[in-house]
């Protein structure tokens, strides 16, 4: 296996010559690692949150029906629900009551919501972890809300929603139907929107079409659409981050081009010696190939490891300010590390391919040094 021994010998020489130029190569590896790290963090984060959203939302209502008035979302009459229930294939149609509440004291937006079955009494509420954090309150405390008439109503907190469901419940305030209607002055037969369940999942689209036809003033939203929208949303966001970051990527490419083409006199002489003593151009290119491989592999692995730790152990601490913006209620969650070979391959493509392309021509230029150049100087 002369071929394998040749690769081994050349790799061996490459490693020793890389180690001889520690400073120069360390700088390259550092920059490379940072590039991989940032890209990998973005991708790990968005993929994990996408996947988590998909899993969490798979039990969301199958079809939501909203009423539109003059292009705006409006309350819907429960009569619609009775009619929809009559459509064949529909198992149930229930009203949902929910809305937003801006708390001027803590400058936070809560989502107020009525669950299908409320466990507690009137005048009692359950709140999400984010609400309890921002309002510095806990179980048993009193929480005041301004009603539609400007009067202050107080509620007793009976429960804090579990912290493990924070990704969906952080800003929720759950109360009884009566309280909700009184607080916002919603008439008895009106609800925010309708949640429709369908027996056969393959009929969902047909039924949504039927609803749209029967009630032209509504807009049905299918669960798959919600999931799809989230998918696009996060793809888009990670894409935008990549585009923003592409300047840095470009800088890295130019940097590696420059590193590869800016051979010192010492290196040039060294390649001249190699060629004079019997190395062929292809052998020098092979050596440079191994050099690139070693650098890429080291940086790629290091960058990925750091990104993993960053995203999944520290909950993307470096991104949090960006993602959070000025949201007061930001859920505290730790992502499940969904990673697959596809992501790694994409990452590889995004970093190693540009690096390799940038170094092909400089590598070749270095490799064609004339062997007799060492005799002429």
């Amino acid at each position, binding site marked *: 296996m002369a071929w394998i021994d040749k690769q081994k010998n050349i790799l061996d020489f490459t490693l020793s010559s890389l180690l001889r130029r520690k400073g120069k190569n360390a700088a390259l590896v550092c920059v490379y690692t940072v590039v991989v790290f940032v890209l990998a963090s973005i991708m790990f984060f968005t993929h994990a949150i996408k996947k988590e959203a998909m899993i969490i939302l798979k039990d969301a209502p199958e079809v939501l029906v909203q009423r539109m008035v003059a292009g705006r979302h409006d309350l819907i009459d429960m009569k619609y629900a009775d009619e929809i229930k009559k459509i064949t294939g529909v198992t149930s149609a229930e009203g949902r009551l929910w809305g937003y509440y801006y708390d001027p004291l803590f400058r936070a937006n809560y989502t107020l919501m009525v669950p299908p079955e409320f466990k507690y009494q009137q005048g009692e509420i359950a709140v999400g972890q984010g609400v309890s954090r921002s309002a510095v309150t806990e179980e048993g405390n009193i929480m005041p809300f301004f009603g539609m008439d400007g009067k202050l109503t107080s509620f007793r907190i009976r429960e804090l929603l579990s912290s493990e469901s924070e990704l969906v419940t952080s800003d929720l305030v759950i109360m009884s139907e009566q309280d909700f209607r009184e607080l916002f002055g919603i008439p008895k037969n009106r609800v925010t929107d309708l949640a429709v369940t369908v027996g056969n999942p393959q009929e969902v689209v047909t039924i*949504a079409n039927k609803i749209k036809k029967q009630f032209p003033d509504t807009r049905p939203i299918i669960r798959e659409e919600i999931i*799809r929208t989230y998918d696009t949303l996060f793809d888009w966001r990670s*894409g935008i981050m990549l585009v923003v970051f592409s300047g840095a990527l470009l800088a890295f490419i130019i940097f590696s081009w420059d590193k590869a083409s800016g051979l010192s006199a010492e290196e040039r002489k060294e390649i001249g010696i190699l060629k004079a003593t019997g190395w062929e151009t292809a052998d020098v290119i092979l050596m440079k190939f191994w050099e690139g491989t070693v650098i890429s592999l080291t940086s790629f692995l290091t960058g990925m490891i750091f990104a993993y730790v960053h995203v999944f152990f520290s909950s993307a601490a470096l991104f949090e300010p960006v993602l959070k913006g000025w949201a007061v209620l930001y859920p505290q969650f730790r992502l499940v590390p969904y990673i697959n070979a*596809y992501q790694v391959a994409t990452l590889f493509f995004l970093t190693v391919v540009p690096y*390799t392309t940038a170094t092909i021509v400089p590598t070749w230029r270095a490799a064609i040094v004339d062997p007799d150049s060492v005799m002429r100087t």
Partner: protein
Amino acid sequence: MILHPAILALLAGSFMASAMLLYSSWFGIQIIRSWDLRSGSELQLGLEKRTYLISTIMSYAFVFQLVSLFLFIYTADSLCTLFVGAMCAAGTLNVNVYGYPAFILKLGNFILAGLWLILNYADNRAHDYPLIRKKYLLLLFITPFLVAETFLQTLYFLGLEAEVITSCCGSLFSKEGRDSLPLLYALPLVPMKLLFYSAMAGTGISGFRFYSRGKGAHMFSAFSLVTFMVSAWFLVHVIVLYIYELPTHHCPFCIFKKEYAYIGYLFYMTLFAGVISGLGVGLLRPFVKIGSMRSFVPEIQKRLALIALASYATFLFLAVYTMSVSALRM
């Protein structure tokens, strides 16, 4: 357009590959015009040095094509949730008219790059580079295809618009038949099996004949090309059904998934290895008589034939095996 990281990666990669190939073609033209090995002029020495660059670029391009082919499929697959009616990569590729042409070009370019490398390998072993002009003509032939691929792929990705919730209504248009494959017609099972097995047999016999007696190189190449196409067609219409154990799911890409133990990679890799080395045998056939190549070309051809035969045999074995262990009976 969907700003997905993998899409950005594929687009950037393709643009870079095209640029490199255009750059190579430029020197290819110079080589075709002014190559003269007997001359020791600086122009000639310069051109000889260029050949190293172009070989390197082509080797990278070959690897790039292979990886990007799979990444392309994977990306299409991961995007399928964004389109109504798309269940897997097959559906996503059908979202606009550029998907499949881009995919087919990707396939073709990978094979062409492989053939170029075979030619290059043979040529580099002959001390007078007898194929140099032919080699660079082939390069000039490949470049437009790669550029076209980049172009189509860009159009494809630019034309992707996710069907998300819009302001007035949900996206309720249902698109049917997205998962069907264009240009692939199925025959009844028995003729299809007959065709597949006879193509395999033809390749086997002609390959064995070539390997043992050195005759019928062109025939063997023709057979390997036919077998490649027939097998791909058979894979999509028959074998996958046994793998999915569903008589209606024809997706040629789902077999790359984990649920099917990534068996697709084996199927496609053996097909590629088979067709590239099979075609390589015929490609080298005209050059057996060239003085400087006589000593080693037959040996390369034999090795290629062996690779082709082994690959197709593996494919055949995999096919028969999956069909026999499957719970599906047809």
